[in-house]
C-alpha cells in the first residue's frame, strides 16, 4: 500500500503493462521526453526507449490511425489525445474507423488498443479544453468507455483496458490528476464493466462518474448527517455498463440521482434514467433525477466554472429538495 496521485497512477499503470507485454507501445504529443503535459507519462521514455514511447507531431488523426493500423497488425498501442476536447479533430478515426471496422468486416479485424485522454473541467481552461466528452464515446457502438475516479482504479482499469481485445476509450479526469489515494503494491488488474458501490444507504442511490465521485461521496456524508442515507455507486465503466449493480442499488433505495460532469443533454445519466425507468419502474418512489453541468460551454473564470459543474452543495440541495417533495 502506498499513497499515489492519480497522475502517477497513470504512469505506473502504463509501465506495468509495458513491462508485461512487449507489444504494448505508447504514442502521443509530448508524451516522451517531456513526460506529458499532465506529467502522466513521466519516466516512460527513459524506461522503455524511443521505439516503444513515441513523440508525435500535432496530428491527432495520424496518431489514432497509427494506433488503429498497429492494433490490427499485432501491436497493442496506447495513444494519448492530450485533451479530450481534441477528439473532435480525430473523431472520424475513433467513431467511423476504429469503432466500426470489426463489425463491418464481420470480425476479420480487431483493435486491441487504448486511447487515453485528459477529460473534463475544473482547471479554468475554458470552453475548448474542459468539456467532459465520455458521452460522445458512449454514443458510438464499438467502443468501450472507462472513466476512473481514483488512483487504484486508474491502474486496475487501465490494465484491464490494455488487456482487452477491443478498443477502449480511457478518460482520465483532468481535475483529479493531483488527487491522491491508497494503492496496493504489486500488479493490479481490475475488470471492465463493473460498477462499485462505495457507500451503502437506504434512502437514495447516487450514481456518479470520475471527477463527480468524490463530490457524490462528500455530499452523501452531509446528507447522512441531515437524515438522508444514500448509496453511492461509482459507474467506472460506461461500456460495458454494469446495469446489474446499478439497477439493484436503485431498486433497493427507490430513488436515483446521477451526478454528471457533461453538459446536460444526452449524457450517460439520460441513458441510465431510461434504463432504470424501463427496468425498475415499479421500484421507483420518485423520478430519477440528473444533476449535470447545464447545457452550456464551460466558462473560464473560476467562480463561473465552479457554478457550472455539479458541486457538493448542488448535489446536496438537489437531493434534499427532491427527497422532501
Amino acid at each position, binding site marked *: 500500500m502506498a499513497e499515489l496521485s492519480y497522475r502517477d497512477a497513470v504512469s505506473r499503470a502504463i509501465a506495468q503493462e509495458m513491462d508485461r507485454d512487449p507489444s504494448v507501445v505508447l504514442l502521443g504529443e509530448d508524451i516522451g521526453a517531456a513526460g506529458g503535459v499532465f506529467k502522466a507519462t513521466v519516466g516512460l521514455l527513459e524506461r522503455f526507449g524511443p521505439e516503444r514511447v513515441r513523440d508525435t507531431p500535432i496530428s491527432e488523426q495520424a496518431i489514432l490511425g497509427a494506433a488503429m493500423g498497429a492494433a490490427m497488425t499485432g501491436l497493442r498501442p496506447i495513444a494519448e489525445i492530450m485533451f479530450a476536447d481534441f477528439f473532435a479533430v480525430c473523431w472520424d478515426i475513433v467513431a467511423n474507423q476504429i469503432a466500426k471496422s470489426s463489425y463491418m468486416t464481420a470480425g476479420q479485424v480487431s483493435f486491441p488498443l487504448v486511447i487515453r485522454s485528459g477529460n473534463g473541467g475544473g482547471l479554468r481552461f475554458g470552453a475548448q479544453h474542459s468539456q467532459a466528452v465520455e458521452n460522445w464515446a458512449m454514443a458510438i457502438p464499438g467502443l468501450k468507455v472507462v472513466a476512473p475516479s481514483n488512483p487504484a482504479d486508474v491502474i486496475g482499469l487501465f490494465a484491464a483496458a490494455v488487456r482487452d*481485445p477491443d478498443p477502449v476509450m480511457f478518460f482520465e479526469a483532468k481535475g483529479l490528476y493531483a488527487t491522491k489515494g491508497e494503492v496496493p503494491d504489486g500488479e493490479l488488474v481490475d475488470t471492465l464493466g463493473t460498477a462499485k458501490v462505495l457507500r451503502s444507504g437506504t434512502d437514495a442511490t447516487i450514481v456518479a462518474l470520475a471527477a463527480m465521485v468524490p463530490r457524490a461521496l462528500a455530499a452523501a456524508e452531509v446528507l447522512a448527517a441531515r437524515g438522508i442515507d444514500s448509496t453511492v455507486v461509482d459507474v467506472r465503466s460506461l461500456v460495458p*455498463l454494469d446495469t446489474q449493480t446499478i439497477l439493484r442499488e436503485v431498486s433497493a433505495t427507490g430513488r436515483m440521482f446521477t451526478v454528471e460532469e457533461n453538459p446536460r443533454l444526452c449524457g450517460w445519466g439520460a441513458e441510465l434514467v431510461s434504463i432504470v425507468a424501463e427496468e425498475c419502474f415499479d421500484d421507483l418512489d420518485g423520478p430519477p433525477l440528473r444533476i449535470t453541468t447545464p447545457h452550456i460551454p464551460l466558462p473560464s473564470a473560476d467562480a463561473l466554472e465552479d457554478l457550472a459543474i455539479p458541486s457538493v452543495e448542488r448535489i446536496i440541495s438537489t437531493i434534499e429538495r427532491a427527497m422532501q417533495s
Partner: protein
Amino acid sequence: MSAPTDDITVAKGPPGVDPAILHRPGGSVDAPTQLALYRQMVRMRKFEKRAYDLFLQNLVKGTSHLSLGQEAIAAAFGVAMDEKDYTFATYRGHAHTLARGTSMTGVMGELLGRSCGVLSGKGGSMHLTDVKRGVMGSYAIVGAHLTIALGAAWSAKHRGDPRVAVAFFGDGTTNIGAFHESLNLAAVWKLPVVFVCENNLYMEYTPIRTVTAVDNPAADRASAYGLDSIVVDGNDADAMYLTARECLERARSGGGPSLIEARTYRTSGHSRADPGKYKPEEEVAAWAAYDPIDLYRARLLAHGVGEADLDAVDETADSDVQTATVEAQASPPPGLDLLMHHVWSDGGSSWRN
C-alpha cells in the same frame, strides 16, 4: 482491340499529360509477369462489367464504385506486392481486392449482400476486406485509411516484419487533412508505406483542377514531406509495375515512404448513380483511345505473345466471372443472427450485463 503500333508499345503517355514529367522507372518486365499483369487487368475489367450489369438489374443494392479504366494500377501492385504485404483500399476497391487473390465469389457475394460475401454482407461494396490475403480493408471516408496504413507500416517496422503497406486513394483525397498528417508522419518515422494516388481527374463529379492549388495534386505535394515527386502513366501496366517495385523495394529496405501519382481515367461514372455527364466528350474519347487493357494487349502482341494465349486469359476470366456470379446468386442472404455479431472481438455486441 487495336493493332500494335510503336506508339502504343512505348506508351505515348496519358492524354493531357506532358510526357516530360512522367516517371520512367528503370528495369524491364519479363514475359510471365506481363502475362500476370494482363490477366489481373482482364479479370478486374470483366468482373466489374458484370457487377455493373447486376446493378442495372437492381441486384446490387446500395452504392458501388468501379475502377473501369484504372485497372493497370491495382494490377501492377497486385503483381508487384509480396504475398504478405498490406493493402488499404477505398470504397473503389473491387480491383485492389481481387488483385490480392481474393475470390471473385467472395467479392461478388459481398456486392450482392449474400452470405458468401467476404464480409457476409455486413460491409458491402465499400468495405471489402480479406485479411488472410493482406487486404486490410476498404475505407469509405476519404483520407482515413492513409493514417491506418501508416499504422500498419509502423507496426511491421516495429516488429521487424518486412511487410510493406500500400494505400490507394484518389486525387480528391489529396485535399483532406488526413492526407497531410499521414504523409508527414510516415516520412518522419521513415515507414515502409507506399501512398498511391490514382489521379482520375475527378473527385466525384468535380474536376480536381478546379479545387486544387497545384497541377499534380499528389506529386506537387511530395516535396512538402521531403519525398520525390513521381507522376507515372497509370494506364501503362509496365510503367506502373516497375514504379511499384521500385517503391516497394525502397520501403522494404528502410528507405521510407513513397508517394506515387498515377495518371489515369475512370471511364465509368463515379458511383452507381452517376451517368458521368460532366465529362467533356473529347476527354472521354481521348482516354477511350488510351485504355490500359487495349494498350497492353497490343503491346504484348507486338512483343510476340500469341493471340491465343491472351484469348485464353480472357476466356478463363469470363468463366471465372460467370462462376462467381452463379455462386453468389445461389448464396443465401446472411443469417439474421449476424446482425448482433462482431461488434466486439468475442463475436458479440453486448454493452451491458
